[in-house]
């Protein structure tokens, strides 16, 4: 049921964004908003709380995105939050981005790194992934200080972990 709802909302977002004609920009803005939603407990609690009036939640969305995102992005976020699906927003955004990439015959590679990747690094990483997996991917970078160093790439259920954190964890395991 939840998966069906996520897929349905993702499809709706994709349809609206496609019609509005700024699909790539909407993808980037929704991805950034989803990352902020994941990392900010207060924001997550406020938008997912059914006891908070819908108008108040929409006002929060409007305050956050006003001037920082397109009208299409704001409307789509407001639609999801207004429908009481804020808790599923990250999953809906992920599904939407995968749906958009699929429309271009590409997969989504979520890359977590301690620092942002340069454009060159993104291109080389996409090429390297294509070489190793045979998939055309679009790189989505998430800055995650817990990685410490290196990169963790997630493509669907596949994970390529080259982080310093993993090596420290391996070291920790070897001590046991």
């Amino acid at each position, binding site marked *: 049921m939840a998966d069906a709802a996520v897929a349905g909302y993702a499809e709706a977002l994709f349809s609206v964004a496609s019609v509005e004609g700024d699909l790539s920009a909407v993808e980037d803005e929704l991805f950034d908003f989803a990352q902020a939603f994941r990392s900010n407990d207060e924001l997550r609690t406020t938008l997912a709380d059914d006891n908070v009036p819908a108008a108040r939640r929409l006002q929060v969305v409007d305050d956050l995105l006003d001037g920082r995102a397109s009208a299409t992005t704001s409307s789509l976020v407001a639609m999801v939050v207004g429908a009481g699906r804020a808790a599923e927003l990250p999953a809906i955004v992920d599904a939407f981005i995968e749906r958009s990439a699929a429309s271009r015959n590409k997969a989504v590679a979520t890359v977590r790194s301690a620092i942002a990747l340069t454009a060159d*690094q993104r291109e080389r*990483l996409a090429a390297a992934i294509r070489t190793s997996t045979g998939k055309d991917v679009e790189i989505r970078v998430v800055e995650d200080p817990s990685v*410490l*160093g290196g*990169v963790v790439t997630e493509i669907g259920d596949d994970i390529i972990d080259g982080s310093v954190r993993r090596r420290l964890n391996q070291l920790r395991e070897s*001590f046991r």
Partner: protein
Amino acid sequence: MRNQRNRLLAAPLLALVVLVALAGPASASGDSVGACMAEHLEAHGELDSHLLHDEAVQDELEKCFEAPSPILPELNEIIWGGGAFLILFVLMVKKGFPAVQGAMDARAERIRSDLDEADRAKLDAQSVKSDYEARLADAKAEASRLIDEARGDAEKVRADLVARAEADAAGIRERAAAESDAAKAQAIADLRAEVASIALGAAERVVQSSLDAEVQGNLIDAYIDEVAGADG
């Protein structure tokens, strides 16, 4: 019974016959001395002094002085006495003897019955006694068996308790040893984890301090090269 009765009748009849047979002499000398002398003198005619000095007459008169039998009664007494005796005897035979005989038979029968009853009672008592003795023997055997059984049960319980106590003690010792080993292992593991944590914390701080932008970029480049080098 009949022989006894015949013998009883024969004795008085024999006595009666003897009395009648001996009644003759008694009746011959049964008159008084004066009558006897008068009779003899009259037989010799007229009485005179010569007659009294005649030796033959004196001998006859001497006989009159002979005393009557001290045993034999007079004939009439014998007749009356014998008649009375016969009447009494017949009455005794007809009435008294059957009554006495019946009483004696009844008494003998009662005594025999009492003896039989006593024998039966004795037999019954012996039977009861043997029954009680048998029951007593059974009770003693049962009591002995119960005692043996109880003793066996007690021994079994004691053995079980001892075995259980030994098993419990062994279990406690094993658990104590296992807990001791586990505590020892846990302490070693905790110590090792603590040392590892301290070492890793120090390593992480060193790594973080050494991860400047250049190093980060190099790590990302190395990662990209690694992914590109990996084949499928």
